[in-house]
């Protein structure tokens, strides 16, 4: 029962956000040299942009988990009845 990764776009968001947090913490510590500060600054600004872009997505995805003959799993599109 291994837990595999979730959808990549979301993982990206979480990773981006974690990295962003890390950068903020490192910068706040103040123990890195100027060159690293500039690199982190560039990375941080880019990550922020990526995160904000991902937050633009609008439609929630609803799927249904079903089992096929033989026991393997398959995702189906699902819409709720009005």
């Amino acid at each position, binding site marked *: *029962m*291994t*837990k*595999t*990764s*979730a*959808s990549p*776009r*979301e*993982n990206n*968001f*979480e990773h981006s*956000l974690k990295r*962003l*947090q890390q*950068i*903020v913490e490192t*910068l*706040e510590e*103040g123990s890195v040299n*100027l060159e690293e*500060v*500039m690199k*982190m*600054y560039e990375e*941080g*600004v880019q990550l*922020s942009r990526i*995160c*904000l872009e*991902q*937050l633009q*997505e*609008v*439609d*929630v*995805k*609803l*799927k*249904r*988990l079903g*089992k096929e003959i033989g026991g393997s*799993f398959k*995702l189906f599109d*699902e819409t*709720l*009845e009005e």
Partner: protein
Amino acid sequence: MTVSELTRRIKGTLEKGFPVAAVEGEISNYKQHSSGHLYFTIKDEHAQIQAVLWRSRAANLIFTPQDGMKIVARGRITVYEVRGVYQLDVVELRPLGTGELQLAFERLKQQLAARGYFDAGRKKPIPRFCARIGLVTSPTGAAIRDIVNIISRRWPSAELILYPVAVQGAGAAHEIAGAIRDFNAWGKVDVMIVGRGGGSLEDLWAFNEEVVADAIYQSAIPIISAVGHEIDFTIADFVADLRAPTPSAAAELVVPTRREMVEIVRNYCYTIQQIATARVVSEREKINGILRSHAFNRPIDLLRQYSQQVDELRRTLMMVVMNRLKSSREQWTSLDKRIRSVNPELILRRGYVIVRRNGEIIGSSKKLKPSDSVHLDYHDGRVPAVIQKQGAGHP
């Protein structure tokens, strides 16, 4: 009369004589056959009767019967000829009042508590960003609607995976437990919401079943229970990693709001820019400080000192040269005087002459012969002369 004939007559008599009976008693020897049919005995202090509940009717049960549970069973008496037994063919099985359900609830709660099912220490944390959210609920209930609505509004990039199950009736508990296990086998959700909308105690009963408790307990994926309204507490709520008072509340627990996240990301970005800018300013200050510092200015200082020294040296040198020139001139003047004092002209003025023959100065009388043409240089002019005769030494 054969056994078959006798049995058939008993069967006819019994089945006509007891069309429908409602009987109260306690369940014992409860068994669920793999076919789905339920077999058990209903007893009181003095007697017992076999009972069967066919699978098709078991689906309408609101609870899973347990040994010791007091029930009311309604059904017909039938005779099972093959084994020569009579039994109650149960059409409806209900706990004896809600008090009995309450008792079953308390009994199971105590058992599971003793097994450590509710220990806070084994509760899994709910991820902050649930990308894929498994939903174990009815596809037609209020719960799924509420959850989809709220998540669409808060965190639309989430993916909702519904595992449709019946949420009430006897089969519901097994379906719910199966869905939880299937999500674990599939493994691709970050969290599960297990629940349903509000209803009576009987409606919610599936979530008080041991199979559901087991499945939740064994799940490797964090589970949020969301059963009924805020006042409803089920066994599932105690075992789940987190209890949400309602399905809507569960939806709010699994995802942040987009606005919240935008705010957080913007803050991070702002902080990074602030720190980086401040750092650049401070580094610039440092550099300026160095430029102004004595140490850094030393070369220029030295240069200035040297050039001053050079100026001084040059001045000194000029002085030396001038002095030399001056003394040289003085020397020359005195020499000139001395030279002037030995000038032959001065001698000539005293009456001496210089004798030259063809320009050559003749310094001795012996160099002259008779008839030599010479010149006599006086201080004021030249006179030609001819030698008459050989001289005879000094006069």
